[in-house]
């Protein structure tokens, strides 16, 4: 254990976080790209061609499950940051929430589209109004609601507060999505991976977990880029920013 203590509060200030975030971006972006290529290679060339029960379309799972997980994780993270920004008046928290929302919405949309492209050959329908699918659609609307609510209010502090209320209240939807396949009868299959078991062939599991890692790293990199843009847009008049812009 190092005795040197990091002053975390220092990085709660946008002026200090801005250059730190800039340095961290390549540390996440480059491994994300490598993991995407590696995961797809394992998923398409190492995993065996036909699974007895699922046919070839099981290969959609490698991106469907990571996208669905990211949609839920990012929502909780967004609500946490928004809540911290609201409760402690920490403006970086609100900026982080604003930076996470579009990426979360994109992953939720990907999970809905890939799910639909899986449902068509597997169930014979593109969409059913089933608990899992409906609650995921609500998640998507929560993201869109958060983004449009924030952008519709001109006063930044009020926009952050309104967004935080929506984000925090909407968290209730995440456990509903997660447990929906247990609570209600559903066409959607149950959890493939639980703490106790992996109901998948080992190569499939490997491919999926690599892509989960890729999606995480990608999200972190993209959110850091976006939060830097938001800092620049919001703190335009701050002296530290006008001074440091010359270096960028």
């Amino acid at each position, binding site marked *: 254990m190092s005795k040197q203590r990091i002053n975390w509060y220092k990085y709660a200030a946008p002026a200090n976080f801005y250059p730190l975030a800039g340095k961290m971006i390549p540390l996440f972006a480059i491994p994300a790209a490598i993991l995407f290529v590696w995961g797809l290679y394992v998923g398409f060339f190492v995993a065996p061609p036909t699974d007895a029960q699922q046919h*070839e379309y099981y290969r*959609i799972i490698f991106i469907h499950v990571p996208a669905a997980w990211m949609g839920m994780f990012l929502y909780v993270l967004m609500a946490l940051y928004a809540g911290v920004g609201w409760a402690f008046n920490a403006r970086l928290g609100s900026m982080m929430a604003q930076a996470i929302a579009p990426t979360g919405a994109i992953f939720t*949309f990907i999970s809905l589209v*890939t799910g639909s492209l899986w449902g068509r050959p597997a169930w014979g329908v593109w969409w059913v109004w089933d608990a899992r699918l409906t609650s995921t659609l609500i998640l998507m609307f929560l993201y869109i609601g958060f983004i449009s609510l924030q952008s519709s209010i001109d006063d930044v502090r009020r926009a952050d507060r309104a967004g935080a209320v929506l984000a925090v209240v909407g968290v209730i939807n995440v456990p509903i999505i997660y447990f929906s396949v247990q609570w209600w009868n559903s066409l959607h299959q149950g959890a493939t991976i639980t703490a106790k078991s992996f109901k998948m062939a080992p190569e499939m599991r490997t491919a999926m977990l690599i892509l989960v890692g890729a999606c995480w790293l990608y999200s972190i990199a993209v959110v850091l880029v976006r939060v830097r843009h938001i800092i620049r*847009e919001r703190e335009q008049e701050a002296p530290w920013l006008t001074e440091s812009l010359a270096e960028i």
Partner: protein
Amino acid sequence: MQWASWSEFFSMGGFGFYIWGSYGITFFLLGAEVLMLLKRKHNLTKRAPRLKSHEGQLETSFQEMQ
């Protein structure tokens, strides 16, 4: 290598549309997200020099209002 030929690989046992559609949309959207962020950065950098003459801008806008 699990595939006998490239055409077998692309047809994916008849499910090529669903599989390539899924991955196509995914990487299209992620690529679009990255491009939009790069464009936003470009716009910010273009605007940056104007920031320094911020006071001058305010004066001209006041004049326009009058």
